[in-house]
Protein backbone atom coordinates (compact mmCIF):
# COMPACT_ATOMS: atom_id res chain seq x y z
CA UNK A 1 0.00 0.00 0.00
CA UNK A 2 1.50 3.26 -1.13
CA UNK A 3 0.06 6.64 -2.01
CA UNK A 4 2.65 9.16 -3.21
CA UNK A 5 0.77 11.92 -1.43
CA UNK A 6 0.49 11.70 2.36
CA UNK A 7 -2.75 11.46 4.28
CA UNK A 8 -4.81 9.70 1.63
CA UNK A 9 -5.98 7.06 4.11
CA UNK A 10 -3.44 4.30 3.43
CA UNK A 11 -3.20 3.15 7.02
CA UNK A 12 -7.01 2.92 7.41
CA UNK A 13 -7.25 0.82 4.25
CA UNK A 14 -4.21 -1.31 5.13
CA UNK A 15 -5.73 -2.00 8.56
CA UNK A 16 -9.02 -3.00 6.91
CA UNK A 17 -7.34 -5.26 4.36
CA UNK A 18 -5.31 -6.96 7.07
CA UNK A 19 -8.58 -7.79 8.85
CA UNK A 20 -10.28 -8.98 5.65
CA UNK A 21 -7.26 -11.19 4.89
CA UNK A 22 -6.49 -12.73 8.29
CA UNK A 23 -4.09 -15.32 6.86
CA UNK A 24 -1.39 -12.74 6.33
CA UNK A 25 1.43 -10.93 8.09
CA UNK A 26 0.92 -7.19 8.46
CA UNK A 27 4.12 -5.12 8.03
CA UNK A 28 4.12 -1.46 9.06
CA UNK A 29 6.80 -0.03 6.76
CA UNK A 30 5.87 3.63 7.32
CA UNK A 31 8.66 3.56 9.86
CA UNK A 32 8.95 7.28 10.48
CA UNK A 33 5.23 7.68 11.17
CA UNK A 34 4.22 4.14 12.18
CA UNK A 35 0.56 4.18 13.24
CA UNK A 36 -0.84 0.67 12.83
CA UNK A 37 0.09 -0.12 16.44
CA UNK A 38 -2.62 2.35 17.47
CA UNK A 39 -5.28 0.24 15.74
CA UNK A 40 -4.12 -3.23 16.73
CA UNK A 41 -2.60 -2.76 20.20
CA UNK A 42 0.16 -5.30 19.48
CA UNK A 43 1.59 -7.64 22.13
CA UNK A 44 5.34 -7.86 21.47
CA UNK A 45 6.72 -11.38 21.07
CA UNK A 46 10.29 -10.28 20.47
CA UNK A 47 12.35 -7.26 19.56
CA UNK A 48 15.55 -6.78 17.59
CA UNK A 49 17.95 -3.85 17.53
CA UNK A 50 18.54 -2.12 14.23
CA UNK A 51 21.65 -0.27 13.17
CA UNK A 52 21.63 1.60 9.89
CA UNK A 53 25.33 2.43 10.03
CA UNK A 54 27.91 4.23 12.15
CA UNK A 55 28.07 7.76 13.54
CA UNK A 56 31.06 9.91 14.30
CA UNK A 57 31.97 11.44 17.67
CA UNK A 58 35.05 13.47 18.63
CA UNK A 59 37.14 12.02 21.48
CA UNK A 60 38.05 15.28 23.28
CA UNK A 61 41.15 13.88 25.05
CA UNK A 62 42.79 12.93 21.74
CA UNK A 63 41.68 15.96 19.71
CA UNK A 64 44.43 18.45 18.88
CA UNK A 65 41.94 21.01 17.59
CA UNK A 66 43.34 21.13 14.04
CA UNK A 67 39.86 21.43 12.53
CA UNK A 68 40.48 19.01 9.66
CA UNK A 69 37.23 17.14 10.40
CA UNK A 70 35.24 20.37 10.12
CA UNK A 71 36.83 21.06 6.72
CA UNK A 72 36.22 17.64 5.17
CA UNK A 73 32.66 17.03 6.40
CA UNK A 74 30.30 17.73 3.50
CA UNK A 75 27.20 17.51 5.67
CA UNK A 76 28.04 20.39 8.02
CA UNK A 77 27.69 18.05 10.98
CA UNK A 78 30.51 19.64 13.02
CA UNK A 79 30.20 22.76 15.08
CA UNK A 80 33.09 24.38 16.83
CA UNK A 81 33.38 27.09 19.43
CA UNK A 82 36.76 28.79 19.73
CA UNK A 83 39.59 26.34 20.39
CA UNK A 84 37.29 23.70 21.93
CA UNK A 85 37.25 20.26 20.25
CA UNK A 86 34.54 20.23 17.54
CA UNK A 87 31.22 18.58 18.36
CA UNK A 88 29.23 16.33 16.00
CA UNK A 89 25.53 17.03 15.66
CA UNK A 90 24.21 13.48 15.38
CA UNK A 91 21.17 14.69 13.49
CA UNK A 92 23.31 15.79 10.56
CA UNK A 93 26.02 13.12 10.66
CA UNK A 94 25.66 11.10 7.44
CA UNK A 95 27.76 8.24 8.80
CA UNK A 96 30.30 8.41 5.97
CA UNK A 97 33.42 8.26 8.16
CA UNK A 98 35.36 10.82 6.11
CA UNK A 99 36.26 12.72 9.29
CA UNK A 100 37.89 9.61 10.71
CA UNK A 101 39.91 9.17 7.50
CA UNK A 102 41.08 12.76 7.69
CA UNK A 103 41.83 13.05 11.41
CA UNK A 104 45.63 13.03 11.97
CA UNK A 105 45.23 12.33 15.70
CA UNK A 106 42.88 9.33 15.44
CA UNK A 107 40.45 11.29 17.59
CA UNK A 108 37.20 10.26 15.88
CA UNK A 109 35.14 7.45 17.34
CA UNK A 110 33.11 5.80 14.58
CA UNK A 111 30.89 3.03 15.92
CA UNK A 112 27.63 1.43 14.85
CA UNK A 113 24.71 3.44 16.13
CA UNK A 114 21.50 2.06 17.56
CA UNK A 115 18.94 3.47 15.15
CA UNK A 116 15.80 1.60 16.03
CA UNK A 117 14.02 -1.59 16.90
CA UNK A 118 12.00 -4.14 14.95
CA UNK A 119 9.19 -5.92 16.76
CA UNK A 120 7.27 -9.09 15.98
CA UNK A 121 3.89 -8.91 17.66
CA UNK A 122 0.66 -10.79 18.07
CA UNK A 123 -2.56 -8.88 17.46
CA UNK A 124 -6.26 -9.73 17.28
CA UNK A 125 -5.98 -9.75 13.47
CA UNK A 126 -2.88 -11.97 13.39
CA UNK A 127 0.89 -11.48 13.14
CA UNK A 128 2.34 -8.00 12.75
CA UNK A 129 5.90 -6.75 12.23
CA UNK A 130 6.55 -3.11 13.07
CA UNK A 131 9.42 -0.84 13.93
CA UNK A 132 10.42 2.21 15.86
CA UNK A 133 13.13 4.63 14.76
CA UNK A 134 15.33 6.05 17.50
CA UNK A 135 14.84 9.79 17.85
CA UNK A 136 16.35 11.79 15.01
CA UNK A 137 17.87 8.70 13.37
CA UNK A 138 17.47 7.77 9.75
CA UNK A 139 18.17 5.15 7.26
CA UNK A 140 14.52 4.36 7.09
CA UNK A 141 15.06 2.55 3.75
CA UNK A 142 17.26 -0.05 5.43
CA UNK A 143 14.80 -0.38 8.31
CA UNK A 144 11.93 -0.87 5.85
CA UNK A 145 13.91 -3.67 4.19
CA UNK A 146 14.50 -5.33 7.56
CA UNK A 147 10.79 -5.12 8.50
CA UNK A 148 9.88 -6.68 5.14
CA UNK A 149 12.46 -9.42 5.54
CA UNK A 150 11.20 -10.38 9.01
CA UNK A 151 7.57 -10.31 7.80
CA UNK A 152 8.38 -12.56 4.84
CA UNK A 153 10.30 -15.02 7.04
CA UNK A 154 7.44 -15.17 9.53
CA UNK A 155 4.89 -15.69 6.76
CA UNK A 156 7.04 -18.51 5.38
CA UNK A 157 7.23 -20.28 8.74
CA UNK A 158 3.49 -19.97 9.32
CA UNK A 159 2.71 -20.94 5.72
CA UNK A 160 0.84 -17.71 5.10
CA UNK A 161 0.89 -16.58 1.49
CA UNK A 162 0.31 -12.85 1.94
CA UNK A 163 2.25 -9.95 3.45
CA UNK A 164 0.36 -6.63 3.64
CA UNK A 165 2.83 -3.73 3.66
CA UNK A 166 1.78 -0.24 4.77
CA UNK A 167 4.27 2.08 3.07
CA UNK A 168 5.19 5.73 3.52
CA UNK A 169 4.31 8.78 1.43
CA UNK A 170 6.64 10.16 -1.23
CA UNK A 171 8.67 8.37 -3.89
CA UNK A 172 12.11 8.37 -2.21
CA UNK A 173 14.21 5.87 -0.31
CA UNK A 174 11.64 4.27 2.07
CA UNK A 175 9.06 3.99 -0.73
CA UNK A 176 11.55 2.37 -3.10
CA UNK A 177 12.41 -0.06 -0.28
CA UNK A 178 8.68 -0.80 0.26
CA UNK A 179 7.91 -1.36 -3.44
CA UNK A 180 10.91 -3.28 -4.73
CA UNK A 181 9.93 -6.83 -5.69
CA UNK A 182 6.29 -6.76 -4.49
CA UNK A 183 3.58 -8.66 -6.41
CA UNK A 184 1.17 -5.74 -6.39
CA UNK A 185 1.46 -2.05 -5.53
CA UNK A 186 -1.93 -0.90 -4.29
CA UNK A 187 -2.02 2.88 -4.66
CA UNK A 188 -4.57 4.88 -2.74
CA UNK A 189 -5.10 8.29 -4.33
CA UNK A 190 -6.79 11.47 -3.17
CA UNK A 191 -9.12 13.13 -5.71
CA UNK A 192 -7.43 16.54 -5.91
CA UNK A 193 -4.97 18.31 -8.22
CA UNK A 194 -2.22 17.30 -5.77
CA UNK A 195 -3.43 13.71 -5.66
CA UNK A 196 -3.45 13.44 -9.47
CA UNK A 197 0.06 14.94 -9.73
CA UNK A 198 1.52 12.74 -7.01
CA UNK A 199 -0.06 9.54 -8.33
CA UNK A 200 1.48 10.18 -11.72
CA UNK A 201 4.98 10.28 -10.21
CA UNK A 202 4.28 7.16 -8.14
CA UNK A 203 3.02 5.24 -11.20
CA UNK A 204 6.14 6.17 -13.07
CA UNK A 205 8.27 4.93 -10.15
CA UNK A 206 6.44 1.57 -9.99
CA UNK A 207 6.81 1.10 -13.72
CA UNK A 208 10.56 1.77 -13.46
CA UNK A 209 10.73 -0.83 -10.71
CA UNK A 210 8.74 -3.27 -12.85
CA UNK A 211 5.98 -3.62 -10.29
CA UNK A 212 2.32 -4.23 -11.22
CA UNK A 213 0.12 -1.37 -10.00
CA UNK A 214 -3.54 -1.03 -9.06
CA UNK A 215 -5.30 2.19 -8.06
CA UNK A 216 -8.18 3.08 -5.75
CA UNK A 217 -9.54 6.55 -4.88
CA UNK A 218 -10.40 7.51 -1.30
CA UNK A 219 -13.08 10.10 -0.42
CA UNK A 220 -13.92 10.11 -4.15
CA UNK A 221 -17.09 12.17 -3.73
CA UNK A 222 -15.06 15.24 -2.62
CA UNK A 223 -14.26 15.56 -6.34
CA UNK A 224 -15.94 13.32 -8.92
CA UNK A 225 -14.01 15.28 -11.58
CA UNK A 226 -10.54 14.48 -10.15
CA UNK A 227 -11.68 10.89 -9.50
CA UNK A 228 -12.46 10.62 -13.21
CA UNK A 229 -9.00 11.91 -14.07
CA UNK A 230 -7.40 9.34 -11.77
CA UNK A 231 -9.42 6.52 -13.37
CA UNK A 232 -8.29 7.71 -16.82
CA UNK A 233 -4.67 7.88 -15.69
CA UNK A 234 -4.86 4.34 -14.28
CA UNK A 235 -6.31 3.06 -17.56
CA UNK A 236 -3.67 4.84 -19.66
CA UNK A 237 -0.79 3.42 -17.64
CA UNK A 238 -2.16 -0.12 -17.59
CA UNK A 239 -2.91 -0.10 -13.85
CA UNK A 240 -6.10 -1.87 -12.75
CA UNK A 241 -8.72 0.47 -11.23
CA UNK A 242 -9.94 -1.17 -8.02
CA UNK A 243 -12.72 1.21 -7.06
CA UNK A 244 -13.90 4.28 -5.25
CA UNK A 245 -14.16 4.67 -1.49
CA UNK A 246 -16.66 7.30 -0.40
CA UNK A 247 -16.09 10.06 2.18
CA UNK A 248 -17.40 8.71 5.49
CA UNK A 249 -17.01 10.27 8.97
CA UNK A 250 -17.14 6.78 10.45
CA UNK A 251 -13.61 6.06 9.16
CA UNK A 252 -12.25 8.69 11.57
CA UNK A 253 -14.60 7.43 14.30
CA UNK A 254 -13.21 3.91 13.82
CA UNK A 255 -9.63 5.14 14.25
CA UNK A 256 -10.61 7.10 17.38
CA UNK A 257 -12.15 3.84 18.68
CA UNK A 258 -8.85 2.06 17.78
CA UNK A 259 -10.55 -0.17 15.22
CA UNK A 260 -10.01 -0.91 11.56
CA UNK A 261 -12.90 0.69 9.64
CA UNK A 262 -14.25 -2.75 8.55
CA UNK A 263 -14.29 -3.85 12.21
CA UNK A 264 -16.22 -0.77 13.27
CA UNK A 265 -19.06 -0.50 10.76
CA UNK A 266 -20.65 -2.41 7.92
CA UNK A 267 -21.77 -0.31 5.01
CA UNK A 268 -20.62 2.94 3.41
CA UNK A 269 -16.86 3.36 3.16
CA UNK A 270 -16.32 0.00 4.88
CA UNK A 271 -18.26 -1.77 2.11
CA UNK A 272 -16.24 0.18 -0.48
CA UNK A 273 -13.01 -1.00 1.19
CA UNK A 274 -14.24 -4.62 1.04
CA UNK A 275 -14.90 -4.18 -2.66
CA UNK A 276 -11.41 -2.76 -3.25
CA UNK A 277 -9.86 -5.71 -1.43
CA UNK A 278 -12.00 -8.30 -3.33
CA UNK A 279 -10.70 -6.91 -6.61
CA UNK A 280 -7.09 -6.68 -5.41
CA UNK A 281 -7.30 -10.25 -4.13
CA UNK A 282 -8.56 -11.55 -7.45
CA UNK A 283 -5.70 -9.72 -9.21
CA UNK A 284 -3.22 -11.45 -6.91
CA UNK A 285 -4.89 -14.84 -7.50
CA UNK A 286 -4.71 -14.33 -11.25
CA UNK A 287 -0.94 -13.89 -10.85
CA UNK A 288 -0.90 -17.24 -9.04
Amino acid at each position, binding site marked *: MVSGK*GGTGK*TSLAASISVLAPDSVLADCDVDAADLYLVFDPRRLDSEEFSGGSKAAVIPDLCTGCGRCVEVCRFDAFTRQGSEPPVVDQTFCEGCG*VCRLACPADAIDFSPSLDGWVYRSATRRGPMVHAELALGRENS*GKLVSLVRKRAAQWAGRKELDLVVIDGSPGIGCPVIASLTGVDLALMLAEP*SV*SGVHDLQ*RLLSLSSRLGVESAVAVNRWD*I*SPEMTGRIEDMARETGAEFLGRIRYDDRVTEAIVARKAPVEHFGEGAAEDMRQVWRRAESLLRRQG
Partner: protein
Amino acid sequence: MTIKLALASGKGGTGKTTLATGLAAVAAMRGLDAVYVDCDVEEPNGHLFLHPEMEHSREVQVPVPRVDEEACTLCGRCGEVCQFGAITALPNTVATFPELCHGCGGCTMACPEGAITEVGRAVGTVEHGRAEVPGGSLSFVHGVLNVGEAMAPPVIDAVLEEAPPSQLMVVDSPPGTACPMIAALRGSDYVVLVTEPTPFGLSDLKLAAETVEQMRLPFGTVINRAGMGDDSVDRWCEERGIEVLARIPFRRRLAEAYSRGELLPAASPEMRGWMDRMLDGILARREGAAR
Protein backbone atom coordinates in the same frame (compact mmCIF):
# COMPACT_ATOMS: atom_id res chain seq x y z
CA MET B 1 16.63 40.04 7.63
CA THR B 2 14.79 36.94 6.47
CA ILE B 3 12.41 35.15 8.78
CA LYS B 4 12.43 31.46 7.90
CA LEU B 5 9.07 29.93 8.75
CA ALA B 6 8.67 26.19 8.11
CA LEU B 7 5.47 24.14 7.90
CA ALA B 8 6.00 20.51 8.77
CA SER B 9 4.14 17.47 10.08
CA GLY B 10 4.90 13.90 11.02
CA LYS B 11 1.78 12.68 9.25
CA GLY B 12 1.22 13.37 5.57
CA GLY B 13 -1.86 15.07 4.19
CA THR B 14 -2.57 17.26 7.21
CA GLY B 15 -2.64 20.49 5.19
CA LYS B 16 0.98 21.68 5.08
CA THR B 17 0.82 22.84 1.47
CA THR B 18 -2.58 24.50 1.93
CA LEU B 19 -1.22 26.48 4.87
CA ALA B 20 2.21 27.20 3.39
CA THR B 21 0.87 28.49 0.07
CA GLY B 22 -1.87 30.35 1.95
CA LEU B 23 0.48 32.05 4.44
CA ALA B 24 2.96 33.04 1.73
CA ALA B 25 0.13 34.42 -0.40
CA VAL B 26 -1.39 36.36 2.50
CA ALA B 27 2.03 37.86 3.29
CA ALA B 28 2.32 38.99 -0.34
CA MET B 29 -1.24 40.39 -0.30
CA ARG B 30 -0.16 42.47 2.71
CA GLY B 31 2.78 43.88 0.78
CA LEU B 32 5.52 41.84 2.44
CA ASP B 33 8.43 40.63 0.36
CA ALA B 34 7.77 36.88 0.59
CA VAL B 35 9.09 33.68 -0.95
CA TYR B 36 7.37 30.30 -0.97
CA VAL B 37 9.88 27.43 -0.93
CA ASP B 38 8.60 23.92 -1.70
CA CYS B 39 10.99 21.42 -0.12
CA ASP B 40 8.70 18.42 -0.67
CA VAL B 41 10.81 17.46 -3.67
CA GLU B 42 9.44 13.90 -3.86
CA GLU B 43 5.89 15.17 -4.35
CA PRO B 44 5.93 18.96 -4.84
CA ASN B 45 2.44 20.45 -5.03
CA GLY B 46 2.75 24.17 -4.24
CA HIS B 47 2.87 25.13 -7.94
CA LEU B 48 -0.60 23.64 -8.41
CA PHE B 49 -2.01 26.35 -6.11
CA LEU B 50 0.26 29.32 -6.85
CA HIS B 51 0.72 28.82 -10.64
CA PRO B 52 4.15 30.49 -10.80
CA GLU B 53 5.71 31.79 -13.99
CA MET B 54 9.11 30.04 -13.95
CA GLU B 55 12.10 32.22 -14.83
CA HIS B 56 15.03 30.00 -14.09
CA SER B 57 15.75 26.30 -13.89
CA ARG B 58 18.89 24.37 -13.03
CA GLU B 59 19.89 20.77 -12.66
CA VAL B 60 20.92 19.50 -9.21
CA GLN B 61 23.96 17.25 -9.25
CA VAL B 62 25.64 15.16 -6.61
CA PRO B 63 29.32 14.21 -6.80
CA VAL B 64 29.98 10.54 -7.60
CA PRO B 65 33.32 8.77 -8.13
CA ARG B 66 34.93 8.11 -11.51
CA VAL B 67 37.83 5.68 -11.49
CA ASP B 68 40.82 6.05 -13.78
CA GLU B 69 41.35 2.38 -14.71
CA GLU B 70 44.92 3.10 -15.86
CA ALA B 71 45.98 4.48 -12.48
CA CYS B 72 43.96 2.02 -10.36
CA THR B 73 45.89 -0.87 -8.79
CA LEU B 74 42.73 -2.66 -7.56
CA CYS B 75 43.95 -2.32 -3.96
CA GLY B 76 40.36 -2.18 -2.72
CA ARG B 77 40.85 0.74 -0.29
CA CYS B 78 37.87 2.64 -1.81
CA GLY B 79 35.51 -0.25 -1.06
CA GLU B 80 36.78 -0.50 2.52
CA VAL B 81 36.11 3.13 3.32
CA CYS B 82 32.73 3.46 1.56
CA GLN B 83 29.98 3.09 4.16
CA PHE B 84 27.23 2.84 1.56
CA GLY B 85 28.36 0.01 -0.73
CA ALA B 86 28.65 2.45 -3.62
CA ILE B 87 32.13 1.38 -4.78
CA THR B 88 33.90 -1.95 -4.66
CA ALA B 89 37.02 -3.49 -6.20
CA LEU B 90 36.40 -6.68 -8.18
CA PRO B 91 39.19 -8.96 -9.48
CA ASN B 92 39.58 -7.04 -12.77
CA THR B 93 37.84 -3.72 -12.27
CA VAL B 94 36.27 -1.32 -9.80
CA ALA B 95 32.47 -1.29 -9.82
CA THR B 96 30.57 1.85 -8.80
CA PHE B 97 26.89 2.12 -7.91
CA PRO B 98 26.17 5.84 -8.30
CA GLU B 99 22.60 5.65 -6.97
CA LEU B 100 23.94 4.40 -3.61
CA CYS B 101 26.60 7.14 -3.38
CA HIS B 102 26.09 9.80 -0.70
CA GLY B 103 28.74 12.08 -2.25
CA CYS B 104 30.93 12.20 0.87
CA GLY B 105 34.23 12.15 -1.04
CA GLY B 106 35.69 9.36 1.14
CA CYS B 107 36.89 7.14 -1.73
CA THR B 108 38.57 10.05 -3.50
CA MET B 109 40.37 10.96 -0.29
CA ALA B 110 41.38 7.38 0.52
CA CYS B 111 42.67 6.26 -2.89
CA PRO B 112 46.48 5.97 -2.56
CA GLU B 113 46.95 6.31 -6.35
CA GLY B 114 44.82 9.42 -6.78
CA ALA B 115 42.84 7.36 -9.32
CA ILE B 116 39.40 8.59 -8.27
CA THR B 117 37.93 11.92 -9.32
CA GLU B 118 34.41 13.17 -8.77
CA VAL B 119 31.89 13.88 -11.48
CA GLY B 120 28.39 15.32 -11.19
CA ARG B 121 25.32 13.11 -11.48
CA ALA B 122 21.90 14.72 -12.00
CA VAL B 123 19.34 13.82 -9.33
CA GLY B 124 16.76 16.54 -9.78
CA THR B 125 15.88 20.08 -10.80
CA VAL B 126 15.38 23.38 -9.02
CA GLU B 127 13.05 25.99 -10.51
CA HIS B 128 12.60 29.60 -9.53
CA GLY B 129 9.96 32.13 -10.58
CA ARG B 130 7.21 34.48 -9.46
CA ALA B 131 3.56 33.94 -8.64
CA GLU B 132 0.77 36.50 -8.83
CA VAL B 133 -1.84 36.58 -6.06
CA PRO B 134 -4.76 39.02 -5.72
CA GLY B 135 -3.18 42.35 -4.78
CA GLY B 136 0.45 41.26 -4.87
CA SER B 137 3.09 38.82 -5.99
CA LEU B 138 5.73 36.60 -4.42
CA SER B 139 8.85 34.61 -5.28
CA PHE B 140 8.46 30.90 -5.81
CA VAL B 141 11.12 28.17 -5.58
CA HIS B 142 10.66 24.43 -5.77
CA GLY B 143 12.66 21.29 -6.43
CA VAL B 144 11.75 18.10 -8.22
CA LEU B 145 13.53 14.84 -7.41
CA ASN B 146 14.03 12.66 -10.48
CA VAL B 147 11.74 9.60 -10.35
CA GLY B 148 13.72 6.57 -9.18
CA GLU B 149 16.19 8.58 -7.08
CA ALA B 150 16.25 7.59 -3.42
CA MET B 151 17.87 10.60 -1.75
CA ALA B 152 15.96 13.85 -1.49
CA PRO B 153 18.27 15.94 0.78
CA PRO B 154 20.70 17.16 -1.94
CA VAL B 155 17.75 18.56 -3.93
CA ILE B 156 16.26 20.10 -0.77
CA ASP B 157 19.59 21.79 0.04
CA ALA B 158 19.70 23.18 -3.51
CA VAL B 159 16.13 24.53 -3.21
CA LEU B 160 17.01 26.37 0.01
CA GLU B 161 20.16 27.83 -1.56
CA GLU B 162 18.13 29.08 -4.51
CA ALA B 163 15.62 30.98 -2.35
CA PRO B 164 16.21 34.74 -2.74
CA PRO B 165 16.62 36.91 0.38
CA SER B 166 13.17 38.14 1.45
CA GLN B 167 11.37 39.43 4.51
CA LEU B 168 9.50 36.15 4.91
CA MET B 169 10.49 32.74 3.65
CA VAL B 170 7.77 30.08 3.94
CA VAL B 171 9.18 26.54 3.72
CA ASP B 172 6.83 23.68 2.80
CA SER B 173 8.49 20.60 4.34
CA PRO B 174 8.15 16.97 3.24
CA PRO B 175 6.13 14.80 5.64
CA GLY B 176 7.71 12.47 8.21
CA THR B 177 10.59 12.98 10.60
CA ALA B 178 13.48 11.53 8.58
CA CYS B 179 16.35 13.15 6.68
CA PRO B 180 14.23 15.06 4.12
CA MET B 181 12.26 16.82 6.86
CA ILE B 182 15.41 17.60 8.83
CA ALA B 183 17.11 19.03 5.72
CA ALA B 184 14.11 21.29 5.06
CA LEU B 185 13.84 22.59 8.64
CA ARG B 186 17.50 23.28 9.31
CA GLY B 187 18.00 26.92 10.32
CA SER B 188 14.29 27.72 10.67
CA ASP B 189 13.33 30.59 12.96
CA TYR B 190 9.96 29.06 13.68
CA VAL B 191 8.25 25.77 12.83
CA VAL B 192 4.51 25.21 12.54
CA LEU B 193 3.60 21.55 13.02
CA VAL B 194 0.34 20.92 11.22
CA THR B 195 -1.72 18.09 12.65
CA GLU B 196 -5.21 16.67 12.78
CA PRO B 197 -7.20 15.70 15.87
CA THR B 198 -7.02 11.90 15.52
CA PRO B 199 -4.92 9.18 17.19
CA PHE B 200 -2.74 9.04 14.04
CA GLY B 201 -2.35 12.82 14.06
CA LEU B 202 -1.32 12.82 17.72
CA SER B 203 1.14 9.96 17.39
CA ASP B 204 2.88 11.60 14.43
CA LEU B 205 2.78 15.03 16.09
CA LYS B 206 4.65 13.62 19.09
CA LEU B 207 7.42 12.30 16.81
CA ALA B 208 7.63 15.57 14.88
CA ALA B 209 7.69 17.62 18.11
CA GLU B 210 10.51 15.46 19.51
CA THR B 211 12.47 15.96 16.30
CA VAL B 212 12.14 19.77 16.26
CA GLU B 213 12.93 19.88 19.99
CA GLN B 214 16.11 17.93 19.31
CA MET B 215 16.94 20.46 16.57
CA ARG B 216 16.29 23.21 19.18
CA LEU B 217 13.80 25.04 16.97
CA PRO B 218 10.89 27.02 18.43
CA PHE B 219 7.54 25.63 17.28
CA GLY B 220 3.78 25.71 17.65
CA THR B 221 0.97 23.64 16.18
CA VAL B 222 -2.05 24.15 13.97
CA ILE B 223 -4.91 21.70 14.39
CA ASN B 224 -6.50 21.26 10.98
CA ARG B 225 -9.95 19.72 10.46
CA ALA B 226 -10.73 20.60 14.09
CA GLY B 227 -13.85 18.93 15.43
CA MET B 228 -13.43 15.74 13.40
CA GLY B 229 -11.82 13.21 15.73
CA ASP B 230 -11.23 13.62 19.45
CA ASP B 231 -9.61 16.16 21.79
CA SER B 232 -6.43 14.19 22.52
CA VAL B 233 -4.20 16.54 20.46
CA ASP B 234 -5.57 19.57 22.36
CA ARG B 235 -5.01 17.89 25.68
CA TRP B 236 -1.48 16.82 24.82
CA CYS B 237 -0.52 20.33 23.64
CA GLU B 238 -1.93 21.79 26.85
CA GLU B 239 -0.05 19.32 29.06
CA ARG B 240 3.18 20.02 27.22
CA GLY B 241 2.67 23.79 27.09
CA ILE B 242 2.79 23.79 23.27
CA GLU B 243 1.13 26.76 21.66
CA VAL B 244 -1.83 26.00 19.38
CA LEU B 245 -1.72 28.79 16.79
CA ALA B 246 -5.05 27.94 15.18
CA ARG B 247 -7.82 25.36 15.12
CA ILE B 248 -9.15 25.32 11.58
CA PRO B 249 -12.53 23.59 11.32
CA PHE B 250 -13.31 21.07 8.58
CA ARG B 251 -15.54 22.52 5.86
CA ARG B 252 -16.52 20.27 3.00
CA ARG B 253 -16.79 23.28 0.70
CA LEU B 254 -13.15 24.17 1.40
CA ALA B 255 -12.04 20.57 0.85
CA GLU B 256 -13.74 20.75 -2.55
CA ALA B 257 -12.08 24.09 -3.41
CA TYR B 258 -8.71 22.63 -2.37
CA SER B 259 -9.27 19.57 -4.57
CA ARG B 260 -9.69 21.86 -7.61
CA GLY B 261 -6.41 23.64 -6.79
CA GLU B 262 -7.90 26.89 -5.49
CA LEU B 263 -5.72 29.08 -3.30
CA LEU B 264 -7.76 29.04 -0.09
CA PRO B 265 -7.24 32.58 1.28
CA ALA B 266 -8.35 33.89 -2.13
CA ALA B 267 -11.33 31.49 -2.31
CA SER B 268 -12.65 31.98 1.21
CA PRO B 269 -12.78 35.08 3.47
CA GLU B 270 -12.98 32.74 6.47
CA MET B 271 -9.70 31.09 5.43
CA ARG B 272 -8.13 34.49 4.77
CA GLY B 273 -9.05 35.41 8.35
CA TRP B 274 -7.39 32.28 9.79
CA MET B 275 -4.23 32.88 7.76
CA ASP B 276 -4.08 36.59 8.71
CA ARG B 277 -4.36 35.77 12.41
CA MET B 278 -1.74 33.02 12.18
CA LEU B 279 0.68 35.29 10.36
CA ASP B 280 0.12 38.06 12.95
CA GLY B 281 0.80 35.58 15.74
CA ILE B 282 3.98 34.25 14.16
CA LEU B 283 5.37 37.70 13.27
CA ALA B 284 4.58 39.06 16.74
CA ARG B 285 6.28 36.08 18.30
CA ARG B 286 9.41 36.74 16.24
CA GLU B 287 9.46 40.40 17.19
CA GLY B 288 9.08 39.46 20.84
CA ALA B 289 12.00 37.03 20.53
CA ALA B 290 14.19 39.64 18.79
CA ARG B 291 13.70 42.11 21.61
